[in-house]
């Protein structure tokens, strides 16, 4: 495969990386965030590097288990565990919204325990804002006001001036980024896809961990390299992967090694991030807020299931999907219930669908593999 051993993709395998270090060496700050309802453009315009909290490769939850109830999603417990072991000590700030109950509660432990540990003396400011759970005019006004207040808070805490100019520049960089990701996605859904699902995931994860101007150059290079490549020619079932967060390769590899190719997805680190751009013109902060608020939602948006289903249906056609794998991390109610409805709706359309639960730290590989292989065999 064309991207195999591309050193750039290795960024997705670790938490900290050389670009973050260089960024901080030039006296600039890194802000950890969770999750897609955060306006990255705003942070970037404030000269803050947005780093999306994840736990890639971390295989422990023991410390997290002490502080969070065992019904908490294992991704969150693993992230917390990593944090308690110092994995996020490099952060200069922490920003979340009310994404899901699990991450919101992790946030207060970050504050009380992680950044309050004995021997850890750095002051790490925390930021929170409330995102509506439905899409409406009033909801947008609320969201925009929250973003205006967040901007003011960032300016005060980090002593920066976030000008319209810097916001416009940030919008350009981020729009370019999304355009490049869309181009790569188009190469992914070709008859002979130019990249695997695993590679697409690596690109997406790396994309959330380094400055956008740098990754844009890399994405140009990757795009070129992929276009020149032959593409994947062996006959494999074309799968769309949907559901809870996936930020490392194990689960994706399990599917792809079972005789499938994940040619599209509906995941937090995936297609949802690059479908739409910020409109140019008008008040830049309002435009940024509009994109984030009205973007194709995840199940935290309570009244938007139909739009999510429509995306799935359209993508199944466009990417010539043979079957859909719905998955949830145990205890993830949001994706669990959205998947429940998808399962019924897709079956009504006679689209092959497999609905599974799993843990963030992959333990029951044999059970999952058996189910996935049986599903792939069943697809005509």
């Amino acid at each position: 495969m064309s991207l195999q051993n591309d050193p750039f993709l290795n960024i997705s395998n670790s938490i900290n990386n050389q670009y973050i270090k260089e960024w901080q060496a030039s006296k600039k700050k890194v802000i950890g965030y969770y999750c897609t309802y955060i306006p990255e453009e705003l942070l970037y315009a404030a000269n803050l590097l947005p780093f999306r909290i994840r736990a890639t490769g971390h295989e422990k939850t023991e410390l997290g288990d002490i502080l969070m109830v065992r019904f908490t999603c294992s991704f969150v417990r693993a992230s917390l565990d990593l944090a308690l072991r110092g994995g996020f000590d490099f952060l200069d700030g922490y920003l979340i919204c009310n994404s899901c109950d699990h991450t919101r509660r992790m946030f207060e432990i970050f504050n009380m325990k992680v950044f309050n540990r004995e021997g850890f003396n750095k002051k790490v400011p925390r930021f929170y804002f409330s995102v509506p759970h439905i899409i409406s005019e009033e909801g947008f006004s609320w969201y925009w006001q929250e973003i205006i207040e967040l901007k003011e808070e960032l300016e005060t805490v980090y002593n920066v001036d976030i000008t319209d100019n810097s916001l416009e520049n940030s919008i350009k960089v981020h729009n370019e980024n999304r355009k490049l990701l869309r181009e790569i996605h188009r190469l992914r859904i070709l008859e002979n896809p130019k990249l695997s699902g695993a590679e697409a995931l690596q690109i997406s994860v790396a994309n959330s961990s380094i400055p956008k101007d740098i990754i844009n150059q890399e994405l140009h290079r990757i795009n070129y390299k992929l276009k020149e490549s032959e593409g994947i020619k062996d006959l494999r079932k074309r799968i769309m992967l949907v559901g809870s967060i996936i930020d490392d390769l194990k689960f994706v590899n399990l599917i792809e090694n079972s005789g499938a190719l994940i040619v599209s997805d509906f995941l937090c680190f995936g297609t949802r991030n690059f479908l739409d751009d910020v409109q140019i013109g008008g008040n830049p902060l309002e435009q940024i807020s509009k994109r984030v608020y009205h973007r194709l939602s995840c199940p935290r948006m309570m009244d938007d299931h139909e739009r999510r289903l429509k995306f799935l249906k359209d993508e199944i056609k466009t990417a010539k999907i043979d079957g859909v794998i719905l998955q949830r991390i145990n205890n993830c109610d949001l994706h669990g219930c959205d998947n429940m409805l998808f399962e019924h709706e897709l079956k009504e359309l006679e689209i092959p669908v497999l609905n599974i639960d799993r843990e963030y730290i992959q333990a029951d590989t044999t059970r999952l593999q058996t189910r996935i292989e049986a599903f792939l065999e069943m697809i005509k």
Partner: protein
Amino acid sequence: MKERVIPYKMLLEVVSNSYELVWRIVPEHEMQVLKMGLKNLEKCLIDNIQKAEEGLPIIGYHFACPAEFLHCFDCVPICIEGTSYLLAALLPNGSEKYYDLITHWGHPYHTCSSQKGVMGMVLDDLFKFDVITTPTAPCDNTYASYPFFKYKDIPLVITDMPFIHEEKSYEFYAEQIKIGLSEIGKIIGQEPDFDKMKKSLEIENQSLKLELELFELKKAIPCPLESMINPMSAAAAVFMAGRPEKVDFYENMLALAKKRYKKKESPIEEQIRSIWPYMTIFFDLALCEWLDREIKMSVLLDIFTYNLYNPVDTSSEDKMFNDMARKAMNFPMIKQSIEFYDDFIPEFINITKEFKADCGIFTSHLGCKQFGSIPQLLREALRDELGIPLLIIDIDVGDKRFASIKTVKDKIRMFTKTLL
């Protein structure tokens, strides 16, 4: 037309039977909380069933949208969560059949049983809702589970509740309630009658006054009321909201507590005073009796009885809506869900001190991920600041198959041994 609220008929049957049973068997001065609770519950159920039979619209609502808000309509308000759990409390096999129906349909096992019950009943065609309404709170289960009703073609009216306690949030949510009520009105073909709603809110205010007095009396040593007051208060909050039965219930409870307080009497030979920062258990009401009689442990309060909000100012429509929003956002569970625990922990430590509690018991409910960080943080805070232990029990408060009543009792028994 007659078969639109079958689970309410099931409820009425068990409530009436249980009431008759305790009334006949138990000596007159015993189990007064349960008797009074069942009597008032029975009245509310009879009234609602009759209204359903008259053809009034059935409005399903999330407990975080207090029922008195819906009293601006001629309707039968049915609480989704309350119905699942009252059946769990009173039917021999609880709501299990309905939990299983919806679980087999694909609802994740870890999602809250309080919604599962009614979801299963809808699959079984037992309810004919005209509309269902919910706020976007308090938990993932709510926003995850309610779209199911829309899938089943039941109109769903959602009011968006901000996840932060600020003045602007109350203003925003007040507007959302107005919009929501007007949408419901359109669906059921009625104009909201705010005068009627005002009367209901005033009844609630009256009841709140009594509850606050009762709250103070329960600080007495020994506690003058049975532990059963906690689950019965939860039932009153849900099934009697905005109705005279609620006032009647609390008037009787207050009179009883006052009488006992004066005589320094208690129905419990109180040896241990416990506080339950979260809920008591719904799948087995007899647990409260067991705690009182066998363990001699009084349950001074749980989340439904310490979480008291301010009365609603009904002097103008604007004030009324603003205070309704304030009330909804400070309702038990909702309050804690939409704020951070920086406030909750010190507040709870103060309550523990005021009530002179010896210990705490936290039922860590499978559904409530929005409480995911609190049990351990609270345990540490109670230990460090007051030297009081907190027992944490992993449980599904509405489904005995997760942690059985035996397991719960064993844990409590072991825990109390370390206290005495």
